[in-house]
């Protein structure tokens, strides 16, 4: 594994290796519960909590976890935190909990979390593991809000339940339906790819110009 600086650990997950938009991990919640910004945020927070908690535990306990059963142990740790998150949400914000439904429990099988434990937390000191978890968790949250934002704005004409277009707005119901989830992520990927492609083209043009100037000189 490449050696990384703490700063890289923190920021890498936020954008450059964004779990949803770049690595395509944790798609199930990113598509299922992002029909409003509120739900996306709640899901983001819950996932963040689970990620942080399990990264901390795994990093602390890494010496005691036998290699043969490490995956099962990670899953157990994650499942514990998920259950805690599930019950806490239900007790504190029952309305949101009802909307997220079974998808909170499904954080257990969010490959992103297990992936971080296996790839990072189990091999690094506690501080680094936490930084990484914060970075990835933030990245996940950003992606969730990007999804939720588009879907809520188009699908309901509002952002965080604040109407944007007045009363007469015709909502695009499809955006808050399952199909809208797929399409929105597709739109975002198209957009990001387009942006990356454009950047590449520009660099190419710049490089060409530079080299021609050098030749001219």
């Amino acid at each position, binding site marked *: 594994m490449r050696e990384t600086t703490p700063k890289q650990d923190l920021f890498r997950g936020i954008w450059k290796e964004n779990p949803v938009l770049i690595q395509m991990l944790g798609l199930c919640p990113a598509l299922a519960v992002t029909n409003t910004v509120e739900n996306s945020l709640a899901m983001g927070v819950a996932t963040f909590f689970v990620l942080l908690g399990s990264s901390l535990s795994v990093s602390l306990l890494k010496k005691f976890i*036998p290699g*043969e*059963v490490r*995956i099962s*142990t990670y899953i*157990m740790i994650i499942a514990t935190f998920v259950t*805690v998150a599930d019950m806490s949400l239900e007790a504190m914000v*029952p309305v949101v909990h009802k909307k997220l439904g079974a998808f909170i429990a499904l954080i257990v099988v969010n490959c992103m979390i297990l992936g971080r434990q296996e790839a990072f937390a189990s091999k690094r000191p506690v501080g680094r593991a936490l930084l990484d978890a914060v970075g990835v968790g933030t990245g996940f949250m950003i992606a969730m809000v990007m999804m939720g934002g588009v879907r809520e704005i188009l699908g309901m004409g509002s952002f965080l339940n604040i109407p944007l277009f007045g009363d007469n707005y015709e909502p695009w119901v499809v955006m808050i339906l399952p199909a809208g989830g797929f399409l929105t992520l597709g739109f975002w990927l198209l957009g990001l790819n387009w942006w990356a492609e454009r950047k590449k083209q520009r660099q190419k043009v710049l490089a060409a110009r530079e080299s021609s100037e050098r030749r001219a000189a």
Partner: protein
Amino acid sequence: MSDEPQVQEPEDNGASSAGIIATLAVAGMLAGLLLVVVYEATQPRILAYKEKMMKEAVGLVLQEPASFTTLYLVDGKLTLDLPEDAVEKDFEKVFVGYDEHNSPVGFAVVHNRAGFQDQVKVIFGYDPETGGMMGMKVLESKETPGLGDAIEKDMDFVGQFERVVAPLVGVKKGSGSGDPHEVDMITGATISARAVIRIINEAFERWDPLIKAYDHGGSKDA
């Protein structure tokens, strides 16, 4: 795209089975402990919330009775008390509401069946003597937002269930003949609206004889 964690061969093969089991047991115990603590801490609030919601729903569909109680279906009969050692959730139940004088005002029934997308769960209250509906509330549905979910949000539709008489008949909006059994459908969401009516009719058909057979005398008044 590989979502699966890369399962590498474990590096330390030295760990003994006993060690593994011990570690797992300790971890499991710790996890269990944590869960029990959180469970104990949150459960009261969760149950309280659920009860509150149910109370509100029953209150709504029975037009705010002074009190209400739960009846259980035991051996084909409605009774107030459960047999000993029985678990509450194993029994079907209805709610009966009372006014200030402890005389029953109506029954509330929960029932569900398939709607447009998924199951629709409805609670409704009615007066068994006249068959007159007292109110209806959709407890759970995944009907299409902006269309089928009008069965929850369209107040014109929901409001009708305070006046109509079971069994219900759905008619196109504005084409009713004034019959008390008629319910105006929602334009564009006919299936969902029809599902609500069917739920109520089904539940009515099933529970009405049971409710009529229920003898109030031996319960609350006593």
